[in-house]
């Protein structure tokens, strides 16, 4: 059974969704255990797959048994690059499933919960499928599954702006997916093949590599994937979609959907066209890195201007996408390693921030930043996890965010792309300002701003949060957040730290997968030594 792992990790959530549809379209209580069971099975499968990849190299799996002439059947491929991303998708899926224990939104009528869980599980199937597949057209089908479920999840909320955001999301998403489909069509028209490895070998032929169609195909796929990952000029749909969607949905969409699209871009660049072909002319990587610099700066500065917490975090996602695209296009070893590592680190920290933001919005009254007073006292655990996520976004060791900047800046220095390095540093500073502004509001609370000469005598010792309930009237319900909401948040914060502390082994796995590729293969020759 162990060589069937790639199929198991996809089939489990698929059957979970179908079981919910058949067994209990009505009540949520029966649906939740099915969700947990199916996601833990696929998590176990991904972890087993990871150990297999680490011990015995890439795993290939041919659907329907069509292996002998390559390209007939559909091939799934797991190597150093996507093994870890699979584990993260399954893990984050499980954590957010626990977080949305009572359906999409705490306030929502819970009888929509089973439908929410069906869409949720099928989104996990889509994301896992995109990451694992080795067939160019199959990526389109699974991108569509992931997109349709995301449109459904965004639109099923109660807020009117959510449905409007879903409409824009559909329009932009369809344009993106169709561009990708057209790109694969052009590839098929010129090479006659759909399997990534086969296309790669055909593009290696000189007359195919030089053809204009392949160039147009690459541009189409690139633009399509950029729309899907909300890369700077094409990010219009993301902020509203992730701000006004139900809280459970934003917990799964924000950390994963854009990161998986970045993975698709990297997979297409490395496994379909090949690093040699993509970085053949330095002009491209220069222009894309410049675009990434603009994305990073724009994302960070627009986030600075935001008033709503979740919208601010959404613009930070646009900036983080700029990190990854810029890193991947530095055309050197450490840039690519940094980009792939950042997919993991960014997924973890975005999950941590969005779960915390959902709890704040629910329990601290409204999404606006200036209404988050006294959080450190009222919800110390939730605020603590939010701080860990924020430190990772700022890039403070030992969190994951620091080490992705650590590799990206090294890639930037070695590639001589100083504007990229400057943009990374500047956006870290802007993040610092952003988050310390929130800490200040959360730390200070609305105390009378008296001088500190003559202190009014306070009750000695630490006033417990209950006593402090009088901190300004909070419109949100004052109940403490549920354990099923706080536990995944703490796990997410731990994940952020673990990604940082164990960045060594993670990077070794990624470097192993990049071995032997031109440009991004071995570590670049060192300056000076």
């Amino acid at each position, binding site marked *: 059974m162990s060589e069937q792992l790639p199929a198991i990790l996809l089939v489990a959530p698929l059957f979970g969704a179908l079981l919910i549809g058949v067994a209990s379209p009505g009540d949520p209580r029966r649906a939740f255990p099915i969700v947990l069971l199916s996601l833990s099975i696929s998590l176990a499968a991904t972890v087993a797959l990871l150990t297999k990849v680490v011990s015995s190299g890439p795993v290939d799996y041919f659907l329907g048994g069509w292996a002998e002439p390559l390209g007939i059947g559909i091939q799934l491929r797991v190597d150093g690059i996507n093994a870890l991303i699979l584990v993260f998708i399954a893990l984050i899926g499980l954590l957010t499933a626990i977080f949305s224990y009572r359906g999409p939104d705490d306030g929502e009528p819970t009888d929509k919960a089973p439908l929410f869980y069906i869409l949720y599980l099928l989104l996990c199937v889509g994301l896992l499928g995109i990451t694992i597949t080795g067939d160019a057209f199959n990526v389109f*089908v699974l991108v569509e599954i992931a997109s*349709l479920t995301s449109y459904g999840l965004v639109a099923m909320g109660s807020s*009117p*702006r959510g449905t409007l955001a879903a*409409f824009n999301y*559909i*329009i932009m998403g369809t344009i993106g997916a169709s561009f990708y489909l057209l790109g694969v069509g052009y590839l098929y028209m010129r090479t006659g093949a759909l399997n990534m490895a086969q296309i790669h070998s055909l593009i290696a032929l000189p007359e195919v590599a030089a053809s204009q169609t392949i160039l147009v195909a690459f541009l189409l796929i690139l633009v399509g994937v950029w729309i899907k990952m909300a890369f700077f000029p094409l990010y219009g749909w993301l902020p509203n979609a992730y701000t006004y969607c139900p809280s459970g949905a934003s917990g799964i969409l924000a950390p994963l959907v854009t990161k998986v699209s970045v993975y698709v871009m990297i997979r297409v660049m490395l496994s379909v066209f090949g690093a040699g072909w993509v970085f053949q002319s330095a002009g491209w990587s220069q222009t894309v890195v410049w675009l990434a610099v603009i994305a990073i700066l724009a994302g960070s500065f627009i986030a600075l201007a935001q008033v709503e917490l979740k919208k601010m975090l959404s613009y930070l996602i646009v900036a983080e996408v700029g990190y990854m695209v810029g890193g991947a296009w530095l055309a050197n070893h450490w840039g690519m390693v940094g980009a792939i590592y950042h997919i993991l680190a960014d997924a973890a920290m975005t999950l941590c921030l969005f779960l915390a933001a959902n709890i704040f919005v629910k329990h601290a009254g409204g999404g606006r930043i200036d209404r988050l007073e006294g959080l450190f006292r009222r919800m110390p655990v939730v605020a603590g996890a939010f701080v860990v996520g924020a430190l990772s976004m700022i890039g403070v060791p030992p969190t994951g965010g620091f080490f992705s900047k650590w590799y990206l800046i090294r890639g930037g220095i070695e590639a001589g792309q100083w504007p990229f390095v400057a943009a990374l540093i500047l956006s870290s500073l802007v993040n610092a300002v952003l988050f310390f502004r929130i800490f200040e509001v959360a730390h200070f609370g609305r105390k009378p701003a008296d001088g500190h000469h003559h202190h009014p005598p306070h009750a000695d010792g630490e006033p417990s949060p209950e006593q402090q309930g009088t901190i300004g009237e909070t419109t949100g319900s004052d109940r403490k957040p549920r354990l099923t909401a706080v536990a995944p948040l703490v796990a997410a914060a731990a994940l952020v730290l673990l990604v940082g502390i164990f960045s060594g082994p993670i990077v070794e796995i990624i470097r192993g997968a990049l071995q032997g590729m031109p440009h991004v293969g071995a570590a670049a020759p060192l300056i000076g030594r």
Partner: protein
Amino acid sequence: MDLLNQYLIPHFNYWAYVILMMIGMHAMIVKNNLIKKLIGMSIFQTAIILFYVSIGVKEGADIPVLHHHAPEVAESHTPAADPHHAVDPDHYANPLPHVLMLTAIVVGVSTLGMALAISQSIYKDFDTLEENEILAKIKQGGPGIDV
């Protein structure tokens, strides 16, 4: 003249699908009414289907159903024996684009269905489908803005 028959005549299908696609895209981006955007979207997707199918066309080829073998297949139960004369691929159209386009059609239908459902629920909330009116309503703090 050679410009005409080198670029235009043998490649008329590509010109056709690009023009159709651009009409659809223009409508999606520029049109104010949401439903017109959806019409543009379906034109956009149908154009891509036209492109794919036009790749698989072979001059004078039949539909990819191996019909004239049906009688022998029924009684000659020799699984391993190669049929007396090999199938000539040029007689049959390329099946692969048709398979891929079945998926694209299904995706098109699903997206359109979901988009219509969403526009219905937008109409329920904002009771208008004109984008500028909706944005105006949001600007004056329409229903449930600060969720």
